[in-house]
């Protein structure tokens, strides 16, 4: 049933040249090449490998030595502090924390590893680390199978040396695998035995290195409990990879690609010719656009920041303490009661009509102003159109007729003034009404409000009084009267 793929994978190995010692196939794990090299994980692997390459440079890399200890030698290791020092010097990391974090991530991906710890992390001290051989890099191996893992653990039990003893979780894994593969356990055992035999023929120091590298490989792919498995793939990306390659890669300018989607009929799937035409139309449209210069964009972004910095809690403390920091929800409660309107809240109404209408108190105040001017119908109309857009589909028809009758029909009860052009468009829209039928008129009316009524409101004594009053923290009475006034107004009109 299951065949071990040592030979197959050896043949497909990418980093062959780096792996002379593995040619005998002490461990053969499944590998794939090609199709998944563009996956997000592989993008990261590639970048890490570029760093590793620099780290392994003989002249300018991290100093690797063989250390003598007692009766034996520890081959090819470097210390955590040497590594971090190198990273601080050679990468654009800001501080030691960032260097440590990046080192930890590279260890978690198995590019280097502590020589006697299953936990793949890096400490800035004299702990010894070793580089992983490219053969075991995550970019070179496809997710290894459980049978491979079983062979590996089984092999470890055959080498009765303390440093190779199974950790508790590994022993548990082995027991579980034995149960799972009970029927082919004999086969697994034989594989392990064969590999172990090959291993025993190796030079002692070489074996030490290889054993640790193989262990680190499994620490990446079968991490110890509590450690992150870095080889996991984002589920969305996994779905994406499993789909056949998409067409029209060359068309990089948002033209219809003829995808299957809930309502695409065959007719809608464009031929290459049509696609090309649409592509060109799009390009022409882009050429015709009037665009502003980056300097203008920069000024706009900066003035937006300068205007709103007072309201950005990451820059300016809010009026009441930030609930998340002080553990007091006072800020939210005050907003709800609308007892005291601060001047900075009122100031914000002057930023834009949108800001004014977004604040319920501001909206009420503006309505009061409009009523005084006998021009409340514009806002009412605009709000009705917004309401229409938010309705369930089944209610759209009725609301469209209602709005037409109330604001636009010849005998409208609350007529709005619109220019002839927009009126004609809307009249035409009414033949085939939908939730967007009034968009043209509504934006016309909004523009009118913004440029005319709103600017007059901002200049009005009413707004100024409110602004000045709010500075002294407007009394409860003041606001209540506004709210009740408009409430009365509403009941009167309805």
């Amino acid at each position, binding site marked *: 049933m299951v065949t071990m793929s040592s030979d197959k994978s050896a043949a497909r190995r990418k980093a062959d040249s780096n792996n002379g010692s593995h040619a005998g196939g002490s461990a053969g794990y499944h590998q794939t090449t090609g199709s998944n090299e563009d996956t997000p994980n592989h*993008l990261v692997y590639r970048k890490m490998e570029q760093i590793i390459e620099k780290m392994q440079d003989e002249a300018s890399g991290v100093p690797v030595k063989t250390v003598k200890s007692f009766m034996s030698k520890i081959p090819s290791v470097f210390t955590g502090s040497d590594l971090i020092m190198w990273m601080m010097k050679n990468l654009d990391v800001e501080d030691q924390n960032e260097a440590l*974090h990046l080192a930890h991530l590279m260890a978690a991906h198995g590019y280097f590893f502590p020589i006697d710890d299953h936990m793949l992390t890096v400490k800035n001290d004299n702990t010894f680390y070793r580089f992983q051989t490219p053969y075991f890099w995550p970019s070179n191996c496809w997710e290894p199978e459980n049978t491979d893992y079983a062979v590996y653990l089984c092999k470890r039990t055959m080498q009765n040396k303390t440093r190779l003893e199974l950790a508790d979780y590994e022993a548990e894994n082995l027991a579980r695998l034995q149960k799972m593969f009970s029927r082919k356990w004999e086969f697994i055992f034989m594989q392990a035995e064969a590999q172990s035999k090959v291993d025993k023929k190796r030079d002692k120091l070489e074996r030490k290195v290889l054993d640790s590298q193989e262990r680190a490989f499994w620490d990446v792919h079968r991490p110890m409990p509590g450690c992150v498995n870095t080889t996991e793939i984002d589920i969305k990306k996994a779905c994406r990879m499993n789909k056949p390659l*998409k067409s029209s890669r060359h068309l990089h300018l948002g033209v219809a690609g003829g995808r299957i989607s809930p309502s695409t009929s065959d007719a809608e799937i464009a031929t290459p010719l049509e696609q090309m035409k649409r592509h060109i139309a799009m390009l022409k449209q882009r050429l015709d656009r009037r665009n502003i*210069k980056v300097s203008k964009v920069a000024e706009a*972004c900066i003035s937006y920041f300068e205007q709103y910095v007072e309201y950005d*809690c990451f820059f300016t403390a809010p009026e009441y303490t930030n609930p998340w920091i002080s553990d007091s929800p006072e800020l939210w409660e005050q907003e709800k009661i609308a007892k005291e309107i601060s001047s900075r809240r009122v100031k914000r109404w002057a930023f834009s009509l949108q800001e004014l209408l977004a604040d319920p108190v501001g909206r009420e105040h503006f309505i009061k102003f409009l009523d005084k001017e006998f021009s409340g119908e514009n806002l009412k109309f605009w709000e009705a159109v917004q309401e229409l857009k*938010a309705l*369930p*589909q089944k209610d759209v028809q009725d609301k469209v007729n209602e709005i037409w009758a109330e604001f636009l029909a010849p005998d409208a009860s609350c007529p709005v003034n619109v220019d002839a052009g927009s009126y004609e468009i809307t009249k035409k829209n009414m033949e085939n009404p939908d939730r967007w039928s009034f968009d043209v008129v509504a934006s016309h009316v909004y523009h009118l409000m913004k440029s005319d009524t709103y600017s007059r409101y901002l200049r009005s004594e009413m707004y100024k009084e409110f602004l000045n009053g709010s500075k002294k923290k407007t009394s409860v009475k003041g606001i209540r009267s506004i709210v009740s006034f408009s409430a009365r107004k509403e009941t009167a009109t309805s």
Partner: protein
Amino acid sequence: MASDGELKVTSPVESIEALTKEADSLKAKLEEERQKLNDVALSTVADRLEVITYLNIKPRRVLKGHQAKVLCSDWSPDKRHIVSSSQDGKMIIWDAFTTNKEHAVTMPTTWVMACAYAPSGNLVACGGLDNKVTVYPLSLEEDVSTKKKTVGTHTSYMSCCTFPNSDQQILTGSGDSTCALWDVESGQLLQNFHGHAGDVMALDLAPSETGNTFVSGSCDRMVLIWDMRTGQCVQSFEGHQSDINSVKFHPSGDAVATGSDDSTCRLFDLRADKEVAIYSKESIIFGVNSVDFSVSGRLLFAGYNDYTVNVWDSLKCVRVTLLYGHENRVSCLQVSPDGTALSTGSWDYTLRVWA
């Protein structure tokens, strides 16, 4: 333009060639025009601003309860509740302020990729590998899942969803490379949006007063701006070298920020019709999953696969600080509606609130 005549050529073989040529010359011209607008770098103009040195963002809450990777979360309009969805097939409604769980809903699929709060705060939507978007009315009296309702179905996984200013509609993005606007009550498809040539990963509604446009980002590395009324793509941006995982409008509505697997964030301006900033560093090698702005648009928060959140000065184009805390990839982040806090969700099974 000399191209008018060429469009009338009828032979398909010939015209494809001719059209390709025309497209290429148009592209070159467009690039030329763009260069003309590129008079100065955003960061150069922003030189006059003070350097941000006084940020003191700390983790304030840790929300524990999911049994698997948190893939998506969304703030309630009430500024203190959060809905989150996880690969354990659970959707949890949190009172993030007290860290209490108010609802834990078991999903029909274990692969819930996206969730969203409705503007009323009384409804949440979610979906994922089931290709569906399902809504759940929230009530304290009965089991939330009894009132669930499937609204729309895509032909591939649903990767992102949002309510466009109304409880009655849902906008979804999907692995079938389309976006779709659905009527919640009837499940009717109101509009669909074709144009991407790869899986749609993220979308965001424009903060304009009419709310008629939205932005989408996709694995085809394109950012598209859509008109919801017509279903047409009205603007497009390219530049990223890998999948775009996140898109977010600048609070002014005039620009969008993106995060990508190419480990950069970028800022595309609608009025300039081009990329105006790139946020990257040589030492940042992991992909970006999620981006969001602070209220003033100055700070750009970005959640990375390297377990961190990088906070960028969007104007000076430099990193301000790094937020450490999560122990696995940061999959989602969002500034709260009143801008008082930042929420993050991670593959380490937790959500955190920073302020």
